[in-house]
C-alpha cells in the first residue's frame, strides 16, 4: 500500500485538546434548532445529505454555520452523549464559538482552507486543537 503524505490544515484553537477519529463532513453550511436533534446526535434538515446519520464519536467537519442561534444544539449533544469528538470548520462566528463552548470538545475554526472541501466522510482526522492543526489521512488514497 502506498503511504501518501498526510494533509495538514491550519486553523485557530477554539476549544483545546486532542482527538482523532473518522470524519463526518457536511458540505452544506450547517443549521441547528429543529434541524439538528441533540438527543439523537443527527441532522434532521430536509434533504440534507447527512440527514439521520449520527455525528456521535466522529470528527464533525463543515464550512460555515447558518440560521438560528439554536445552532448551539450541536453543542447540546454532549449532554446526551451523542456528541462528535471534535469539530473543524472554515468560517465561523458567534454561533460556532457558543456551540463549541457547550460541546466542550477539541475545536479548530477559521481554517486557512475550507476543510469541508478537503476532507470527506470516512477520512481519518487528527485534531490537535492546542496547536490549531488538523491532520487528514484520506480514506481513498490516490494510486
Amino acid at each position, binding site marked *: 500500500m502506498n503511504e501518501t503524505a498526510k494533509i495538514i490544515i491550519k486553523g485557530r484553537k477554539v476549544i483545546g485538546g486532542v482527538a482523532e477519529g473518522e470524519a463526518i463532513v457536511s458540505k452544506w453550511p450547517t443549521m441547528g434548532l429543529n*434541524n439538528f436533534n441533540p438527543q439523537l446526535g443527527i441532522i434532521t434538515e430536509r434533504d440534507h445529505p447527512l440527514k439521520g446519520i449520527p455525528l456521535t464519536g466522529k470528527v464533525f467537519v463543515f464550512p460555515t454555520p447558518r440560521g438560528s*442561534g439554536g445552532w*448551539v444544539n450541536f453543542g447540546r449533544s454532549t449532554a446526551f452523549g451523542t456528541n462528535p469528538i471534535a469539530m473543524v470548520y472554515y*468560517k465561523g462566528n458567534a454561533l460556532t*464559538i457558543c456551540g463549541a463552548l457547550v460541546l466542550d470538545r477539541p475545536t479548530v475554526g477559521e481554517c486557512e482552507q475550507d476543510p469541508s472541501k478537503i476532507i470527506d466522510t470516512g477520512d481519518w482526522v487528527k485534531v490537535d486543537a492546542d496547536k490549531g492543526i488538523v491532520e487528514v489521512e484520506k480514506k481513498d488514497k490516490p494510486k
Partner: protein
Amino acid sequence: MHLTREEEKMLKSDDWVTSKCMEHLVKYGEAAGAERLVDIDGNVVMPTFSSMIPELGIDVTDPEMAGKRLKAFTISRNWSVSDGWEDIGVTPWNDPEDHRRRMQILKSWMRIGVHPINSCAYYLTQTYLPTAGQYCSWHESSAMPYGNAILGAKVNFDLGAEFSVAYTAKAPAYDMRVDENRVATRLVNCETRLKTDMDYDLFGWAVGEAMTVEVPVMTGIGKPTQTQILKMNAELNTGGQVRMYHVPGLTPEASSVDAALKGRKPVEIVNIRREDLKRAYEKMNYASDEDVDFVYLGCPFYSLNDLRRAVYYLEGKKCKAKLWIVTDDWTFKVGELMGYRQIIKKAGGVLLAGACAVVSTGVPPNTDVMAVDACKQDYYITGGYYPRKLEVWYGTMEDCIDAAVTGKWRGKWPGGE
C-alpha cells in the same frame, strides 16, 4: 485576553456570582479569540425557558440568588404561550397548572431584573432600544440584523453566556462587536422588483443562502415596509447567517456602497433575480397533499398592522383547518381591545401571544399538512418531526387564510419580473 483593573477586581469579587460570571466570560472570550471585554450599554435578551443557568450551575430560584440584580437592562424573549393559552387546544400548554408552573419560572427571572417582553420581535415592544454603536447581547434571527443593520447597534450573540453578560454588563469584543467585522465584503444587487411581503421574505432567504456568514451591501431592494424588513431579516439570518448588512439610505452605518465596502473591491458580486426567489419558493413548498390541517401566521410575531390586515381578511369567514395567529403580549392586549381576538375566535381561529410552533408548542395533534407565510417557520418546523414527514405549504398571508377557510391549499407562484 486583556482585563482592565476593574475587571480583574470583578474576577476576585466578594460576590460569588460576579466572580463566577467573570470566570465564564474569560473562558468564553478566549474561545472567541477576543482581546478584551466591552461594557454592555444597550441591552441583553435572556432566554427564560428554564430556571437553570447550566454553564454556571446556578438555579435562579435558589434562595442564595435572593436580592441579586442584573446590571444590564434585560428583557425576555418568547418562551411559552404567554396569552390566549386557554384557547390553544394543545397540551400541556392549555393546562392552567402547567401555565402556572411556567409563570413561576418567569417570575424568578423577573425578580433578578428580566423584564417579561416575551417576544421574538422584542425590539418592537421593549420600549428602550440601543442607539447606534451601543453594545448589546441578543439572539433570534430577525432581531440580530435589526439591531446591527437597522439600528446600527453592536449586537452579538452570546448563547450560553447571557446571564454572565447581563449580570456583569460585560461581554467579549468579537464578531459583530468589532468594527472591522461589520464592513461589507460582498455586493448584492437586487435585479427583480420587490413589492410584496412574500417578495422580501424570499429575497432574504436567497441572499442568506448566497452569503452564509458574510456581510453584504445591498442595492435595488426598493422601499420596504417595516413588515418587509422584519421578514427579510428573519430569512437573511435563516437561509444564512447574515446578522449584519448595509443598504445605503436605509441603514445608518454607511451612506454609500463604497463606504459600506470601506473603499475595497467586493470579494464577490451576487445578482438576485426573480428565478432565485422562485427557487426559494419551490424549496419552501415541501408538500403534495392539498388538504391543510393547520395554518400558522406570525413568524416573526405579527405587528399590530399585520394583525389588523389578517383580521380584516378573515372577518366573516369560517375556518375548516386550525388557524393560529401569533403576536407578542402587548399587541395581543391591543388586539383584544380592538375586538380582533373575538373576530378570529368567531372564524374558528385563535389569537395567541408568545406561541411559536418551532420553539415551544409544536404543531397541534394530528397535523400532517400545515401552511405558513414565512420561510423561517417553514424550514425549521419539518426538522422537529423527523423521521415523520410533516408537509408544509408556503405562500402569502392571504393564501394561508384561504387555506384555513377552505381546508385546501390553492397558493401559486405569482410570477413577476
